[in-house]
């Protein structure tokens, strides 16, 4: 970490902007200010070029034919898996399952693990900060088999109440599904300590890392969670690719999620023998191009250094928080001590959708709405919020434009 901090000074984060063609766009006649990174990030030219090269020179189906292209595509696809493994410090590359995204990864665990090992009356612990993707699958399981959901409450800052969390455990507790970083508020949960506590009760843990993977160093050996899920398109990769990490011994005892080609060893009409992991969970032709592009995105991020990215984004968050919280009539929702570069806010007397439309006319892209986290909105008694979420290619000048945009909204509605 010390080395990474030393590097920060040597990286020119303004220069990085020229790696992203889309950041040169004009929107509403103004330079694009893209502050919707928690929804989806933008793609650097190196990843775009990698996609083009794959489609022009390498595409074929994988794990099948003996011809040149199939072998090449297979090699590149599997190389991407190894890149993911190293990116998150997983013990083995077979612990990396490619999915369509975080949502599919969580659903895979619900079907493959939940249906087999969580039964009637068993309890699943979630937090009140979860994205719908880490609520609805467990609710579906509970409706199907009578399992019970227990929810960790938060304080007014948007931090999980750890004593209440610990008090939820009992002999019926069978699973903990928890976001690493809240998409709506930016809270970074103490997942390592919470995982250790759950393991102390013999409870396996899934972490939804969709908002964490793009912004910090990931270390599965250190976190020790049983499952970790994230999406490629929030970390400079394309849509349609995500990752489920699972400890090998967990993945091995799970049931397949989908049946089809590639996930079998042999098929007769009497019996099918399933393939070993990771193939067991990758039925059908996977998103080959997207997986290879995710590998290229990881190369790009590693070139900057995830520690550097985290440090720079933390600086942006500090600057934005200071400027926005100083504005009269603006309230920041989510003021956890440990936060990722996400600012959810409301402007007194103005609905977030009007905020979003007016900021758009200034070329500023933010997200407005419930952020697929309606329980969070209910907890903080707001129908919706406006949310600015930053990436390493954002600048303090862009935050100044956001502040000016918020003033414009206030003037219009005054």
């Amino acid at each position, binding site marked *: 970490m010390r080395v990474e901090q030393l590097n920060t000074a040597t990286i020119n984060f303004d220069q990085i902007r020229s790696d992203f063609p889309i950041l040169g766009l004009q929107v509403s006649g103004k330079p694009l200010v893209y502050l919707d990174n928690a929804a989806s990030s933008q793609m650097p030219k190196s990843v775009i070029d990698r996609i083009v090269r794959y489609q022009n020179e390498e595409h074929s189906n994988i794990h099948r034919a003996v011809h040149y292209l199939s072998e090449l595509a297979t090699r590149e696809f599997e190389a991407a898996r190894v890149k993911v493994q190293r990116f998150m410090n997983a013990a083995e590359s077979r612990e990396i399952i490619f999915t369509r995204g975080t949502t599919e990864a969580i659903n895979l665990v619900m079907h493959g693990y939940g249906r087999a090992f969580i039964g009637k009356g068993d309890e699943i612990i979630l937090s009140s900060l979860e994205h719908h993707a880490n609520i609805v699958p467990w609710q579906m399981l509970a409706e199907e088999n009578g399992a019970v959901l227990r929810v960790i409450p938060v304080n007014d800052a948007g931090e999980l109440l750890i004593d209440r969390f610990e008090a939820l455990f009992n002999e019926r507790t069978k699973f903990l599904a928890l976001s690493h970083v809240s998409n709506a508020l930016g809270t970074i949960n103490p997942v390592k300590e919470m995982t250790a506590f759950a393991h102390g009760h013999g409870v396996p843990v899934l972490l939804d890392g969709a908002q964490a993977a793009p912004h910090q160093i990931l270390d599965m050996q250190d976190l020790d969670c049983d499952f970790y899920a994230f999406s490629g398109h929030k970390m400079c990769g394309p849509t349609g690719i995500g990752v489920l990490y699972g400890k090998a011994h967990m993945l091995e005892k799970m049931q397949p999620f989908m049946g089809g080609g590639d996930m079998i060893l042999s098929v007769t009409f009497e019996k099918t023998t399933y393939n070993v992991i990771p193939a067991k969970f990758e039925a059908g032709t996977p998103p080959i191009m997207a997986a290879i592009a995710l590998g290229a995105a990881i190369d790009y991020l590693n070139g900057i250094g995830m520690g550097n990215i985290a440090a720079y984004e933390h600086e942006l968050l500090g600057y934005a928080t200071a400027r926005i919280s100083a504005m009269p009539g603006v309230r920041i929702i989510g003021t956890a001590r440990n936060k990722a570069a996400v600012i959810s806010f409301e402007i007194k007397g103005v*609905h*977030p*959708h009007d905020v979003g439309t*007016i900021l758009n006319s200034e070329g500023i892209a933010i997200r407005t709405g419930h952020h697929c986290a309606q329980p969070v909105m209910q907890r903080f008694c707001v*129908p919706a919020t406006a949310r600015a979420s930053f990436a390493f290619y954002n600048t303090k000048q862009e935050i100044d434009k956001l502040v000016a945009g918020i003033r414009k909204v206030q003037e*219009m*509605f005054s």
Partner: protein
Amino acid sequence: MTDLRQLYQEVILDHNRKPRNFGSILGANRHAEGHNPLCGDHIKLSMSILNDKIDSIAFEGEGCAICKASASMMTGVVKGKAVQEADMLVEEFRGMATGTLDPDHQDNHLGKLKVFAGVKDLPSRVKCAILPWHTLHAALHSEFSVSTEGDADPAGDHA
């Protein structure tokens, strides 16, 4: 910015600040609720129809400026109108908001409701403007609850 200023005209901002006919009608004989699950806009409409005419109408709920102003102006415009006339306005407003009716060049009865013409250029906001009208249609025809999502989408294919 010019387009946006046009949409957020003083009249819309004024209706947002001071919505007219806000509340509910005692002894109403028609009710409907409309909601937009994507943004949380929520409108409750109550009205009293006498001799096929809208005798009184009121709304309450939560929403953005466009939704609230649309509801406020709508209630003002349809009060006293025959059900058939209100139905026609629902159609015309929907046409204007989705861009199939050009209120400056095609016959219509929209009058001051034309301030909402600008939403057609903001696809994500069309539903905000139409929700109250969709809810009115439901109340007139005794459907209790409508949503901007699903088969009954008021903005149809345009949103």
